[in-house]
């Protein structure tokens, strides 16, 4: 990725995280609620409207422009050409348990808030086309809800469901695993 973006928290006088997509940046971000964060017309600039409660965390901006962090709301730059951001305020990690004709059931954990595990029945139609083949019992996915904010400042509620692509088994990995088991089992006394 070669596009530039800027992320800064205004009101602090400091700009945080300005650089190239695909790299990792430190930034300050008021994580708790939408009124505390607004978006400038300038591409990808996050303006903090309240000083207190700033949190310092690291986000990884992946090649597909998703900022993934387990513990804090993610922000995603939707389109660096036109500007705009998505701000995520609830994010779940889910594991598919059952698949029906129109829906699938998953056990989910919300990542930002300390709430009980949930069981959610999603519509299969909400899975993006390139993720549809990943739907299987045991598959892992993330579900985010929040706002998409256009470069003109208009905001609308949004929901993103993305399945995790797990690495494939490799011969080398299988061989390493086999050796590791042997070492581990040598130290365990099976009575």
């Amino acid at each position: 990725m070669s596009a530039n973006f800027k992320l800064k928290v205004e009101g602090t006088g400091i700009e945080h995280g300005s650089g190239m997509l695909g790299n990792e940046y430190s930034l300050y971000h008021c994580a708790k609620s939408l009124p505390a964060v607004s978006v400038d017309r300038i591409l990808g600039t996050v303006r903090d409207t309240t000083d207190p409660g700033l949190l310092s965390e690291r986000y990884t901006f992946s090649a597909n422009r998703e900022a993934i962090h387990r513990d804090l709301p993610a922000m995603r730059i939707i389109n660096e050409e036109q500007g705009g951001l998505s701000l995520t305020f609830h994010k779940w990690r889910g594991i598919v348990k059952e698949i029906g004709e129109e829906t699938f059931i998953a056990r989910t954990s919300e990542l930002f808030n300390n709430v009980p595990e949930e069981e959610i029945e999603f519509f299969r139609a909400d899975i993006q086309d390139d993720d549809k083949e990943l739907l299987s019992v045991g598959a892992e996915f993330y579900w985010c809800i929040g706002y998409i904010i256009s470069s003109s400042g208009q905001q609308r509620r949004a929901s993103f469901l993305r399945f995790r692509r797990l690495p494939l088994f490799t011969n080398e990995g299988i061989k390493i695993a086999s050796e590791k088991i042997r070492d581990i089992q040598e130290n365990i006394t099976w009575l």
Partner: protein
Amino acid sequence: MSLCSSPSSNEIEISIFGNSFGESILIHLGNNEWIIVDSFKDYLNKRAIALNYLDKIGVDYGAVKAAVATHWHDDHICGLSEIMIKCKNAAFICSAAINSKEFNEFIFSDSDLIEGRPGNYELRQILEELSKRKGNAMYALENRKLIDNKLYKIYSLSPSDYAMLLAQKEIAVLLPKKNQPRKGIPHVHPNHTGIVLLIVVNGQGILLGGDLEENGDSRTGWSKIIDSVRPVVKSNNFKIPHHGSITAHHEGIWISLLEKEPISFLTSFILGSCALPKKADMKRILSHTNNAWITTSPDEKKQVKRDPMAERTIKERVKAIRAMSDNGHIRLRCPLGTKEWKPELFGPALSLEECLAVK
């Protein structure tokens, strides 16, 4: 009695925890010796529920002598590795199916460990911990005496030899192959590889049915246990298998393995439209004993309250959402040498009779 009071050294305690997504049992065998059977995590602090309870009653983790994984389903294994890491004196007991080379290769090939595949994650962490401390482990098979001391004896009554053979065939299919995607350990259906434990303390039997199921084949499940030569002890405490489901019922359990009107306890389970125990299951159990308790009602529909934006979006985007129940806790205590069991209920735990009445 306050929740935070610990049992005296000459008192047996059976504590059953459940929240409709998980099950864990903690037993005090007297003389400050404890065992933990299965585990799930408290959502508030993400710790094994059994360790939270030991903290509350002021019991040192060194008092835990064994931790048992009856099987590897998610609702029974989350947090078990934490138990093994913290309880340094605990031996690990698992189904012999888990100790196969093929099974081990499967979980260790999954190098990208995540909590989303709890079976892989927990078992791998447990084996690594055992290796680090050069610890002891035992695998359970039918009619195997696992622990024998002057205070108590622990036997495994399953899995049967034939169930092991079936499991090995199923596990062989799991063996990692080049270019296959990584995945969690699939469920083996029906669950014949799970452990049933018989614990004998001072002559009293406690039968923990795990999730062992029954399909009428005399070589597996409860049929095999009932027909086998086993310790001649009828239990007066019974953890009802597989959340009271008809798939784990065998009339012979109540005739051959249990005393009349045994103290019985179970946890509920919810997945999609499946909620256990069903009304018919409760009636069946209550036809055998009036002393039955359940950690949570399978009908409890708990919802997490969120901000209006989230509530609106969730309503639009999902067909159904429900949260796990609060942790229910059934505690049974009895002075050693007596049969004066005293039940106490905490959180949403209730009698099965009451649960049936509101269904």
